[in-house]
């Protein structure tokens, strides 16, 4: 197994902004003063409370330090490349100018303090979805740096992600061959579920699966992939095992309601298999590892999954980030081939 584990591309690690103060050098004079004068100390989200078991493996402490990330996750996994997806609370803001300024700051901070420090690192572009024009500007600005390999968006925001208001973002992403990655968690501009506010962190986290289902339905039904045939979407930390049943249901209704969304000229399941990828942690497998084969068969494609540790989040121990008993050829696909196929910019920058 050791050979399987080395040389992989880790598609989801989460460097943490240690405090808003860390971003001050990357804000312009106006926003630097505004942030300080107004006492804005922190934009840490409710997702992943710092001491909750899910939030960090007990032996993983270093999400705020590039050196620790190297020692704790890149070295042990023999990681060739890792994609930094910073989940700072920029999309939750209601002031779109401030959000745009902070998105720029996070991206510059990532470039200087992470990408410049470790050649194995790449990053997703943090944007302000509050204003798609600003988001496009930020994509254009960051796309000049080939180490930015995708665009990051929250899976649940003000409008479902397929809505046409978002399309300029997808156009810009496709133009620069950047997949759009939706990460779990909501901007809380609506309740995190279709029935209101859950009581528990566990509840909201488990409920990310239905939230991703709604977002994926939207992307497909609105015709995002019909309009942007080159666009690739990555679901980050979505869980995996909910996908087959969801596609069966959506495809069943499509057969009866095609005339409502006639731009869908083939089964939604097929569209998803072509355009959508999922990181493989968490996977949400059953306790019985013998069922893994049946689940893969239901997924219907070995191109869907991308290797990820979801560092520092705690889903597994040791270096067993892949499902037990996975065949070597499939492990290779998940760890290297699928990420390379998904992220064109990786093959440009990986020698």
């Amino acid at each position, binding site marked *: 197994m050791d050979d399987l584990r080395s040389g992989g591309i880790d598609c989801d690690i989460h460097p943490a902004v240690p405090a808003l103060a860390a971003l001050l050098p990357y804000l312009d004079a106006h926003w630097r003063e505004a942030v300080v004068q107004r006492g804005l100390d922190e934009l840490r989200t409710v997702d992943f409370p710092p001491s909750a078991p899910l939030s960090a493996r007990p032996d993983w402490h270093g999400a705020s330090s590039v050196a620790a990330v190297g020692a704790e996750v890149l070295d042990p996994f023999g990681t060739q490349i890792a994609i930094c997806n910073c989940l700072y609370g920029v999309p939750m803001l209601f002031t779109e100018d401030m959000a745009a300024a902070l998105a720029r700051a996070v991206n510059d901070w990532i470039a200087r303090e992470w990408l410049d420090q470790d050649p194995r690192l790449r990053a997703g572009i943090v944007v302000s979805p509050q204003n798609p024009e600003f988001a496009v500007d930020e994509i254009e600005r960051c796309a000049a740096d080939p180490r930015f390999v995708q665009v990051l968006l929250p899976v649940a925001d003000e409008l479902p992600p397929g809505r046409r208001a978002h399309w300029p973002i997808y156009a810009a992403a496709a133009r620069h061959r950047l997949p759009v990655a939706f990460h779990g968690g909501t901007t809380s501009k609506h309740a995190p579920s279709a029935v209101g506010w859950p009581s528990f962190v566990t509840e909201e986290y488990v409920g990310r699966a239905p939230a991703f289902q709604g977002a994926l339905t939207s992307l497909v039904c609105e*015709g995002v992939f019909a309009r942007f045939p080159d666009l690739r979407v990555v679901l980050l930390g979505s869980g995996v095992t909910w996908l087959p049943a969801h596609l069966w249901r959506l495809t069943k209704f*499509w057969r*009866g309601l095609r005339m409502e969304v*006639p731009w869908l000229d*083939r*089964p939604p399941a097929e569209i998803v298999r072509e355009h959508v990828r999922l990181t493989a942690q968490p996977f949400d497998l059953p306790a019985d590892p013998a069922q893994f084969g049946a689940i893969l068969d239901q997924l219907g494609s070995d191109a869907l999954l991308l290797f990820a540790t979801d560092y520092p989040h705690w889903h597994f121990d040791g270096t067993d980030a892949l499902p037990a008993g996975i065949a070597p050829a499939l492990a290779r696909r998940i760890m290297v081939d699928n990420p390379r196929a998904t992220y064109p910019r990786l093959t440009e920058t990986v020698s």
Partner: protein
Amino acid sequence: MPRHVVATLRELPPGGRKRVAVDGRDIVLFNVGGEVFALADRCPHQGGRLSEGRLVGLVEAAEPGRYTWSRGGEIVRCPWHGWEFDLRTGRSRCEPSRLRTRAYDVSIEPADPGPVETFAVTVEARRIVVDVPGR
């Protein structure tokens, strides 16, 4: 190919439909603007009677939001689950190529979709004749 007289045109004026049994098969006839179509009266999905379905036009879209409508009345929607079938070919609008490939795929699995049987129709001396393959 056995030929069966199933109706007269008087019984099936434009806009009309008629359910007939031929050699043990239930067949629905549609007269769409003077042109007569015959389909097996059974949706291959769960068995809804297409003779109870509505005839609609063909809705297509080259891209999201750009709806086009054509061929009014030439598509039948199953009365149950709304699956659309082209009167001219019997093929599903959703998955015509898949259904074509499965047309010769003998399967007894109930939810397995396939094309509706269509039958060639000729109008002779105001009698409607349907060619139905022998059993």
